[in-house]
């Protein structure tokens, strides 16, 4: 990505920036030297270039301090850029009354351009233009000292910022938030996320599973025993029947009872079917239910469905060239219409709902049918009990007459019935799904199989959730470790690459005293060749080292950025100034330098003989009243005199 500065504009700002427009042209020169006397807004311009580019909110106090004078209420600053030849204007509207600074972005292109509030730059450039990096290429002179200050980490910070290693490491925060989100989702089911908690859940699951197996086994053996006992009882009852039928006096009565029993059983079956049939038809269940159904049908009938706006309508519309409103339909519009169509009912669904509405409204039936049928069924069951009582009475009379075989048979049946009743109770406790029976019998998951299955499922769910959460968390930790290792490894490689390149430049700058970078930790650790660690450096040396480092850094960066610097040579001695002036500019695609007249000697002179197409000389002179005169060309540049000169 290639970024160039094509100019800036300032209005109503302090330091002589009442109305300044510096235009570097659509194809700016590689080197621009802007000669401005002290007090004409160099520092403010640098600050506002940084603020405009990095888009960080300016404090209200800072905004108010930018005010030109008490007569102005608003101010303005605009930086103009070419990003891969695409023009962008980044603006700051300043309101001195409330201390606000509003960023705007103007993008000039045929489609989708215009002025928008906020910082609307390509995503990777937006990521790049953070304060730590902006200070590198809109160079903050204090960095020159910080870069070799062993207590600071400006050098490593610069490498990390430029190559996006800090952005890469920010992935770890995303990972943390994803894990946190997953754990919060899972918290509704289980809070276990560590191995110990998962082991506890596993033990709990195993406990429920073995209980379920035990209950299942009990149910099977109880059911099998019950079948055996019922068969045995049926056999004994048949023996009783046969024994009583042997008595000629009882035979007619028993046959009559058998006939009656058959009739009652048939009736009971028919009535049961009838009652179940009535239950399936709501209109036959109860008068209140019928009334409510008819009422609901009436209300639904009033709420008409949009019969003409069905899903098919939108599907057909998406195939048209134009919308019904006349506007042309493009790919995006068609996609929106088709996905929006899912919110509407299809024609067949509308038809079904209309039939349901009609059926509800026209609900008819005998609402007393269910209660009448159940009363009849009850009467048949009462009759069955009466027949049984009659059989028992006949058997009792025969036993009373001395029939010991019959007595023994009846005692055996009674014994079996007691056992069957007990086993039926056991089986009910094991198998009932009826919540009211479960409560009445005080059943738990340890004694009732349906409850045990529910508990088993819940424990399985908790275990699965915790295992998933734990796995996700471990995956996150692993990804974080890999990301951080990548960043550390890349930093080491980049440190060494930048160190070698910096030393190459330092060898050319410091011809007499050989200074080189021994190591880049947080900062540059210097040594004097042959003498070991270098304790300190002069201001000029610091600046030269900083330039060598920055040019090495920026020259090989994945982005071509303009280098903008205020008074680049003011603290360098004449010899270093010439070296810096001769060497540094070649490392940048674009360099904008604010200079004062004293920097012409040695430093600016290095540009005089460069091809005129590559160098732009501007001289800014205050005219009074806050306005400035901007003169272009080498002649004006050379002849300018100010109090610094």
């Amino acid at each position, binding site marked *: 990505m290639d970024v160039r500065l094509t100019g800036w504009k300032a209005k109503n700002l302090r330091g002589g920036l009442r109305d300044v427009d510096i235009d570097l042209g659509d194809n700016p020169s590689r080197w621009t030297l802007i000669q401005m006397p002290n007090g004409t807004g160099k520092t403010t311009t640098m600050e506002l270039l940084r603020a405009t580019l990095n888009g960080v909110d300016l404090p209200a106090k800072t905004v108010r301090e930018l005010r030109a004078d008490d007569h102005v209420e608003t101010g303005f600053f605009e930086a103009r850029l070419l990003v891969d030849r695409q023009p962008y204007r980044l603006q700051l509207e300043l309101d001195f009354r409330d201390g606000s600074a509003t960023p705007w972005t103007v993008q000039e292109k045929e489609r989708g351009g215009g002025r928008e509030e906020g910082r609307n730059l390509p995503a*990777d*450039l937006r990521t790049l233009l953070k304060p730590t990096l902006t200070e590198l290429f809109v160079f903050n002179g204090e960095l020159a000292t910080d870069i070799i200050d062993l207590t600071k980490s400006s050098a490593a910070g610069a490498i990390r910022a430029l*190559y996006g290693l800090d952005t890469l490491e920010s*992935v770890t925060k995303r*990972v943390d938030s994803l894990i946190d989100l997953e754990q919060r989702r899972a918290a509704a089911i289980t809070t276990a996320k560590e191995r110990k908690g998962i082991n506890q859940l596993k033990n709990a699951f195993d406990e429920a599973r073995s209980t379920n197996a035990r209950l299942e086994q009990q149910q099977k053996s109880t059911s099998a025993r019950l079948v055996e006992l019922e068969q045995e009882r049926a056999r004994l009852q048949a023996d009783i029947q046969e024994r009583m039928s042997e008595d000629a006096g009882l035979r007619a009565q028993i046959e009559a009872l058998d006939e009656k029993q058959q009739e009652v059983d048939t009736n009971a079956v028919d009535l049961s079917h009838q009652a179940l049939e009535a239950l399936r038809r709501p209109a036959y269940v109860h008068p209140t239910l019928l009334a409510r159904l008819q009422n609901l049908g009436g209300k639904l009938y009033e709420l008409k469905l949009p019969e003409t706006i069905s899903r098919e309508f939108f599907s057909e519309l998406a195939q048209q060239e134009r919308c019904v409103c006349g506007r042309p339909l493009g790919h995006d519009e068609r996609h929106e219409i088709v996905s929006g169509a899912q919110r509407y009912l299809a024609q067949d669904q509308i038809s079904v709902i209309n039939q349901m509405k009609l059926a509800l409204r026209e609900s008819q039936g005998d609402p007393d049918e269910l209660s009448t049928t159940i009363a009849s069924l009850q009467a048949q069951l009462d009759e069955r009990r009466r027949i049984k009582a009659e059989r028992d009475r006949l058997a009792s009379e025969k036993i009373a007459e001395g029939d010991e075989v019959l007595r023994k048979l009846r005692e055996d049946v009674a014994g079996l019935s007691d056992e069957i009743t007990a086993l039926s109770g056991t089986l009910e406790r094991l198998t009932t799904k009826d919540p009211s029976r479960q409560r009445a019998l005080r059943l738990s998951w340890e004694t009732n199989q349906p409850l045990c299955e529910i508990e088993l499922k819940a424990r399985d769910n908790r275990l699965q959730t915790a*295992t998933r959460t734990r796995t996700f968390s471990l995956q996150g930790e692993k990804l974080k470790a890999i990301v951080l290792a990548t960043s550390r490894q*890349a930093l080491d*490689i980049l440190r060494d690459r930048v160190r070698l390149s910096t030393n190459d430049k330092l060898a050319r700058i410091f011809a007499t005293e050989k200074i080189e970078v021994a190591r880049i930790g947080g900062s540059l650790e210097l040594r004097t060749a042959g003498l070991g660690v270098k304790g300190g450096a002069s201001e000029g040396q610091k600046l030269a080292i900083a330039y060598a480092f920055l040019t090495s850094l920026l020259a090989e960066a994945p982005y071509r950025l303009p280098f903008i610097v205020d008074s680049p040579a003011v603290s360098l001695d004449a010899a270093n100034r010439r070296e810096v002036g001769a060497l540094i500019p070649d490392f940048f695609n674009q360099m904008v330098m604010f200079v004062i007249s004293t920097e012409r000697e040695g430093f600016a002179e290095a540009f005089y003989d460069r091809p005129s197409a590559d160098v732009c000389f501007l001289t800014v002179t205050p005219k009074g009243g806050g306005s400035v005169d901007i003169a272009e060309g080498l002649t004006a540049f050379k002849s300018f005199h100010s109090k610094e000169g």
Partner: protein
Amino acid sequence: MQLDPAISEAMDAVLAGHPDQSDTFQRRYRNLVELVLGGNYQDADVRRVMELLSVSLEVDD
């Protein structure tokens, strides 16, 4: 966006230390780094790469 060779070299070195991880993870991880450095990634991209990592639940807490 073309990755700086230093970043690619660092990724190669780090991924070489994780031979147990699948080729899909390694490919997606490289892709994620490109997206991150291009300032154009979402939580779903991170989640997808995370879920491709094989881990042992027996790791000590």
